[in-house]
């Protein structure tokens, strides 16, 4: 690895050029990745604050800080921003952009200008969202008809913003698929790709196949409000359930757009900090594709109580159970990778382990909800809210925080304070469970979601949940400050602080503009730790 000693004199880190325009006009995949990272983190923090306000309202029965309408606005804002501005573009666009070319040994993505265009579309969508806040929508993030057609709030602007984000998402996915197909370094066969690249590939397929459908759905919703076209209006012969079918045909695969990159992330973190090859590489790669495929066949499990034939419901319930198989393969293989490994509890590893633990709870409660009889009882209760957050925070956000801590030295060339990072992790882990575990109990007791008020018998559990959310909020705050402080006060990061064998760690920290002085020739897959153990073949 001594080959860039010659290049040392020419080495210019990609972060060196200063000025806002050098960022906004940059086609460097690493800069675009960092811009996404800043944007999605900001969205996450803002939407997180709105959820703290909701929890504060729910700390006691009756009106506390907001009224019912303001509460509806808050959860709509929280849902739309978290889903469409943070978690869907999230890991795929930020980490995907930064890492994919580095991992496959390319200098950039296939279409760098298009890549920048996608980011501008994201900014445009975000701007439109901000304008819509003059008359903020109160429909929930699902925009279910007929309410979304009747409400006087600004649904049109908000859905237009999301439509534009959809275009951004499609173009990013397209770019990544072409990049992974066409720009791999010599010797980088499909079975030598990082699992994060496989995860990004599966995600990109979902982005391409599902997003256009939500695009047309939102367009129809807009047209319904503007021209009264009546597709979703029973008075005009339309069908409100059609909206739900269209919406979930996208939004269920979108759940996997959100989670698959996080699966990819921890498949990178766990081998490095166990000093062992990933267990069952091929099973891990193909289970990602299997999840992507099955995700298209399960959308109606969101609609068991919306009215559908019993036969259809039974089929969708069965297909939903199928998702458990490839996801369980992943959980088993991560665990098997840990088995007899030399485990280092780096902060990134703590987040990865949290993901395995919390996602398993989230996944198993998903099986409850996929079962017809149980779902009728639990539908639209806090049980669903808790399940969803165990998957999205316990899964995606843990993966996101893990990735931030793991690739931070590579992205910024600096180290953060590891002790503070661990304290923040502990607060986040405890705060998360204290917030959401009581919600499972609340849900089974019958507490419906999306209400600003509740009967007094739910008081203590709601209060506990609010206390948990504050601990979670403090944890995220400490983590953010710690990472930001690292940028200015952190020590200089070495090229490869964890002795990873993966390709992105073989370039300087931060990497130069063109990534590689010379395009590498790859001879093995990126998990060769401990004894020589090649899964290749």
């Amino acid at each position, binding site marked *: 690895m001594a080959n860039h000693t010659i290049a040392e004199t020419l080495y210019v880190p990609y972060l060196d050029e200063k000025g806002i325009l050098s960022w906004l006009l940059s086609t460097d995949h690493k800069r675009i990745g960092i811009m996404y990272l800043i944007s999605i983190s900001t969205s996450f923090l803002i939407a997180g604050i709105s959820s703290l306000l909701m929890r504060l309202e729910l700390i006691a029965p009756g009106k506390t800080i907001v009224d019912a309408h303001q509460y509806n606005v808050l959860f709509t804002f929280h849902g739309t921003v978290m889903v469409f501005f943070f978690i869907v573009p999230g890991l795929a666009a930020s980490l995907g952009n930064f890492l994919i070319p580095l991992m496959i040994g390319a200098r950039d993505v296939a279409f760098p200008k298009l890549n920048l265009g996608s980011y501008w579309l994201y900014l445009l969508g975000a701007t439109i969202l901000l304008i819509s806040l003059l008359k903020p929508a109160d429909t929930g993030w699902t925009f279910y008809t007929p309410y979304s057609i009747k409400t006087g709030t600004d649904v049109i602007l908000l859905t237009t913003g999301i439509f534009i984000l959809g275009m951004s998402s499609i173009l990013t996915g397209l770019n990544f698929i072409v990049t992974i197909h066409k720009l791999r370094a010599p010797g980088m066969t499909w079975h030598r790709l990082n699992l994060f690249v496989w995860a990004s590939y599966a995600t990109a397929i979902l982005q391409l196949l599902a997003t*256009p459908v939500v695009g047309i759905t939102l367009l129809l919703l807009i047209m319904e409000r503007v021209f009264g076209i*009546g597709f979703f209006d029973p008075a005009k012969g339309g069908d409100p359930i059609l909206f739900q079918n269209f919406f979930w045909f996208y939004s269920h695969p979108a759940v996997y757009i959100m989670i698959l990159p996080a699966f990819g992330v921890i498949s990178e973190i766990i081998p490095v900090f166990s000093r062992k090859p990933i267990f069952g590489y091929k099973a891990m790669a193909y289970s990602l594709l299997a999840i992507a495929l099955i995700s298209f066949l399960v959308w109606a499990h969101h609609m068991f109580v919306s009215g559908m034939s019993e036969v259809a419901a039974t089929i969708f319930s069965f297909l939903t159970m199928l998702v458990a198989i490839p996801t369980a393969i992943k959980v088993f293989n991560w665990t098997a990778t840990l088995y007899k490994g030399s485990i280092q509890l780096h902060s990134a590893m703590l987040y990865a382990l949290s993901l395995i633990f919390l996602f398993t709870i989230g996944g198993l409660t998903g099986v409850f909800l996929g079962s017809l009889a149980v779902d009728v009882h639990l539908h639209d209760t806090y049980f669903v809210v808790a399940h969803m957050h165990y998957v999205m925070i316990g899964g995606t956000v843990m993966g996101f925080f893990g990735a931030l801590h793991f690739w931070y030295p590579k992205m910024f060339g600096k180290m953060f304070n590891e002790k503070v990072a661990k304290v923040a992790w502990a607060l986040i882990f405890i705060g998360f469970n204290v917030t959401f575990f009581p919600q499972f109990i609340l849900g089974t007791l019958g507490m419906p979601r999306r209400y600003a008020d509740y009967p007094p018998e739910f008081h203590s559990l709601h209060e506990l949940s609010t206390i948990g959310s504050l601990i979670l909020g403090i944890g995220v705050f400490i983590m953010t400050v710690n990472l930001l402080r690292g940028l200015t006060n952190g020590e200089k990061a070495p090229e490869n602080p964890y002795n990873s064998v993966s390709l992105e760690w073989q370039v300087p920290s931060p990497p130069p503009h063109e990534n590689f002085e010379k395009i590498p020739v790859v001879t093995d897959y990126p998990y060769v730790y401990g004894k020589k153990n090649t899964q290749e073949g």
Partner: protein
Amino acid sequence: MEEIAMEDTHSHGHQIDPKVEYSAAKFGMWLFLGTEILLFGGLFAAYAIFRAKYAELFHEQHKELDVTLGAINTVVLIFSSLTMAMGVSAIQRGKRNLLSILLVITILCGIAFGVNKYFEYGAKFEHHLTPGTSIFFALYFMMTGLHMLHVFAGITILTVLLVLNLKGKFSANYNTPIEVGGLYWHLVDLIWIYLFPLLYLIS
């Protein structure tokens, strides 16, 4: 660490190999066309559902549509696809001027289609047949309207390509944008070929 050897592969600089660039651009466009079909797919699904539900309404109301104008537009678009394909083949043989002429014809066909459609829409509005009239007309205006947007996008792309060609950017060796732009135009044509019978020729 030594498992991944970094060796010189003699590929310096940022330039992607033109062959890779060509196949990447083409692959990218095919993927994009797939997403376009899925975008229309939602409307086709809605069409299937509502036609099954309201077969008689569809039959009655399709009579309001002008089959002659629709047929003319179909011919115009198919012809424009032909001139587009001829344009691609012309530049592959290095005939830059011929490409310019063929692009102009293709663009004019697109404009003719739009003008035709303008009169068609105008006549519908005069008879108070609007997107709010019925599910059939909602579908008609949504499907043809969305298609019309794609025709405009196609015309814009072809105009940009025409300008670049007049500046001498394309040759027998380099014509990827023409081929990829052509693919897009063919999709616009293809979608219309499905829309025409589905809306105008129901029996």
